[in-house]
C-alpha cells in the first residue's frame, strides 16, 4: 500500500516566501498523477518534499499509513528520476542501476539478477558496462529510469524526465512510461510543464500556481471545465479564447454581446446557471477547436472574423483574427480549422462557434461561473 496523503503541506523559505502553500491532496495506491504548472509554481518542491529531499515546514505527509515528515529519504522507499538524470558519472550503467540495491544490502547475486532483468526490460542489455558519458541522451534517460525500477520502490517520482529529449523521442518515451506504469502498477507522480504530457499520461492532473494547488481532476474533465482563467489559458496551445463581453437578457434569451455584431445566444442548457449574471461584464471562454468553418447543425452559431493571420501547419490551420469590439478595441480570436479550409489573411469569413462547451468567467475573481458540466452527460 503506497497511497500518498498531503495534509495542508507548506514549504516556507528562510526569506519568508512560500514555495508551497497549504497543499491538500490524496493520491491513491497505483495512481498516475501529473503535477502541472509554470516554472516556479512549487510542483518540483512538492515532489522533493514527498521524496524527503526538502523539509516540510508545516502540514503532514503520509505515505501509506506512516507519517513521513521526519523520515529520511532512504527509508521512504521512493525512487526519483531527475530532469538531469543524475547518473553517477564514475560508475558503469550496471553499477548505477545496482547502487540502490547495494545500499539496501542486497546480495551480489540478487543485484546482478535484478539489474540484468531490468536492463532487458528497457533494452539496455548492451550498455551495462558503459559509463554514462558514453551514452546518448535517450539512453541516459532509460538508465535513470532503470535505476528507479530495479529497486521496486513503492512510489515513482518523475521530475520532468522527458524535458531534455527531442520531440520525437519524447513522444515515444511518453507512451513507454504509460505502459511501464500499467505494467508495474506503482503509485507515480510525474512533474511537467508540458500540456501534452499532462493530458495524455496521467489518471489525474494537479495544476499548481504560485505554490498552491489550483485544480485536480481527470485530464479531460479539467480540459472541459477549467475552474479559472489560469487553467483555461494554461492547458492548451493555442489557448482558449478569453473575450471580455457583456451578458444581457434580451427578449427571453440570454445574449453574449461582444459588440459590433459579435453576438451569441447562451444555449438553453446553460441559461439557468448564467441568468443571475445577466447585465454584467464577463469573460467568454471559447476554445479554438470549437470554432468551425461550416455550420455543425443547430449546435453552432455564426459570426464574422476579420482574418489577420493564417498559420498553415500542414495537418491543420490556425487562424487569427478580430471580431466585435465596439466599446473597446476589437477582440482577438484564434480558431483551429481543418487543413482543408481555404482562407486568406485580409479576408472576412463567417465561422461557426459551438457555444455548448464554452464557459463564462468572472472578470474580477477570474473563476469560472458554475454551470452543469457536459462531461458526465456526454
Amino acid at each position: 500500500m503506497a497511497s500518498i496523503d498531503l495534509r495542508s503541506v507548506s514549504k516556507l523559505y528562510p526569506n519568508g516566501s512560500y514555495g508551497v502553500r497549504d497543499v491538500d491532496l490524496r493520491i491513491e495506491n497505483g495512481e498516475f498523477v501529473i503535477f502541472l504548472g509554470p516554472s516556479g509554481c512549487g510542483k518540483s518542491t512538492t515532489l522533493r518534499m514527498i521524496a524527503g529531499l526538502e523539509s516540510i515546514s508545516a502540514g503532514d505527509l503520509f505515505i501509506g499509513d506512516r507519517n513521513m515528515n521526519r523520515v529520511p529519504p532512504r527509508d521512504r522507499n521512493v525512487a526519483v528520476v531527475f530532469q538531469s538524470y543524475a547518473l553517477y558519472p564514475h560508475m558503469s550503467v550496471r553499477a548505477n542501476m545496482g547502487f540502490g540495491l547495494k545500499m539496501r544490502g542486497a546480495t551480489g547475486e540478487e543485484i546482478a539478477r535484478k539489474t540484468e532483468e531490468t536492463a532487458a526490460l528497457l533494452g539496455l542489455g548492451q550498455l551495462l558496462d558503459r559509463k554514462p558519458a558514453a551514452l546518448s541522451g535517450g539512453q541516459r534517460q532509460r538508465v535513470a529510469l532503470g535505476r528507479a525500477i530495479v529497486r521496486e520502490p513503492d512510489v515513482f517520482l518523475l521530475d520532468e524526465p522527458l524535458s531534455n529529449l527531442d520531440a520525437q523521442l519524447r513522444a515515444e518515451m511518453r507512451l513507454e512510461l504509460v505502459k511501464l506504469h500499467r505494467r508495474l502498477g506503482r503509485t507515480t507522480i510525474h512533474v511537467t510543464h508540458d500540456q501534452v504530457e499532462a493530458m495524455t499520461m496521467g489518471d489525474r492532473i494537479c495544476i499548481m500556481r504560485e505554490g498552491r494547488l489550483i485544480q485536480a481532476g481527470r485530464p479531460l474533465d479539467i480540459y472541459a471545465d477549467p475552474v479559472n482563467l489560469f487553467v483555461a489559458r494554461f492547458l492548451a496551445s493555442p489557448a482558449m479564447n478569453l473575450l471580455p463581453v457583456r451578458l444581457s437578457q434580451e427578449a427571453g434569451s440570454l445574449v453574449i454581446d461582444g459588440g459590433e455584431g459579435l453576438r451569441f445566444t447562451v444555449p438553453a442548457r446553460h441559461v439557468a446557471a448564467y441568468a443571475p449574471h445577466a447585465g454584467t461584464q464577463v469573460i467568454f471562454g471559447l476554445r479554438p477547436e470549437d470554432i468551425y468553418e461550416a455550420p455543425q447543425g443547430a449546435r453552432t452559431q455564426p459570426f464574422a472574423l476579420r482574418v489577420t493571420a493564417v498559420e498553415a501547419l500542414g495537418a491543420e490551420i490556425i487562424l487569427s483574427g478580430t471580431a466585435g469590439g465596439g466599446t473597446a478595441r476589437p477582440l482577438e480570436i484564434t480558431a483551429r480549422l481543418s487543413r482543408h479550409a481555404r482562407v486568406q489573411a485580409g479576408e472576412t469569413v463567417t465561422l461557426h462557434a459551438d457555444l455548448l462547451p464554452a464557459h463564462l468567467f468572472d472578470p474580477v475573481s477570474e473563476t469560472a461561473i458554475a454551470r452543469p458540466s457536459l462531461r458526465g452527460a456526454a
Partner: protein
Amino acid sequence: MSADADKPPIARRVALHAGLIAMCLAIVLPLLWVLRVSFVAPEQSYSTTLLPGFSTQNYQALLSGRFGRSYLNSIVVSLGSVLIALPFAAMTGYAFARFSTGGRFARFLMLATQMLPPVALVLPSFTLLKGLALTNSLTGLVLVYAALNLPFLTWILMGFFKAIPVDLEWAALTDGATAWGAFWRIVLPVSLPGLAAAGVLGFILSWNEFLFALVLSGPSTQTIPVALAALQTSNGVQIGNVAAGVVLAILPLVVASRFIQRFLVEGLTYGSVK
C-alpha cells in the same frame, strides 16, 4: 580556393612567427642555461663553450652535503601538510558549497586569512611552536603548513563541490545512502580531479615556502628553499651547486604538474561572473 580562405598573407605570418619564436627563446634560454650549468664541472660554469663536457659533479657535491637531507625534509613537510589539510579542507569546502555553512561572512573570513602578511604571522607561529617545543622540528613545520594550506584548499575544493549537481546527491539519498554515504561514495569520487589538483597546489605552496621555513626550522630540519638560499649566501655563490639545486627543486614540480596538467588547466577557472 583553398580549404581555409582566411589565413593572413604569408609574409605577415613569417614575421609574426619569427617574433614569437624570439620571445619564446627569451623565456626558455635562461632555463636551459641553468640546466647546462648544473651538468658541467663547476670550473667550466662560465665557459663560452655550449657543452664543455657532461658531469654530475655538482649533483654529487650537493647531495653528499646537507642538501640531500633538505630534500627529504621538503618532501615530508609538503606531503604531510597536504595529507593533514586535505580531509579537513574537503569537509569544510563541502559544508560551504552545499549547506552555505556560516554564510557569506565565513567565506569572507576564510579568504581574509589569506590576505594577512605572512611576516605578521611568523612571530606568533614561532611563539606557539616554542610553547609546544616544536621549533626546529618537522612536525611543527607540517602543522604550520597544514594551517596555512587549509583556507586555500578549502576555497578551491568549495569551487569543485559547487560544480557538482545536487541531483547526484539526491539520487544517492533516495537510493538508500546516508548523507555521509552520499559524500563518500558519490561526491568524493566525482571530485577526485579537484582533490588531486588541490593536493598538488598545496604541495607546491608548501614546497616553495621560504619565510616560515627560515624562521621555524633549524639546521637539521631546513627545507629546500632555505637550503637554496644558504647556497647563494654562505661562502659566495657556487653557481654550479645553485644550478643543480634549482634543477632538483623544480624536478618534483615538473613531474607533479605534468601529471595533473589536464585537471589544472581544465578544472581551474578562477573567475566567473555569477
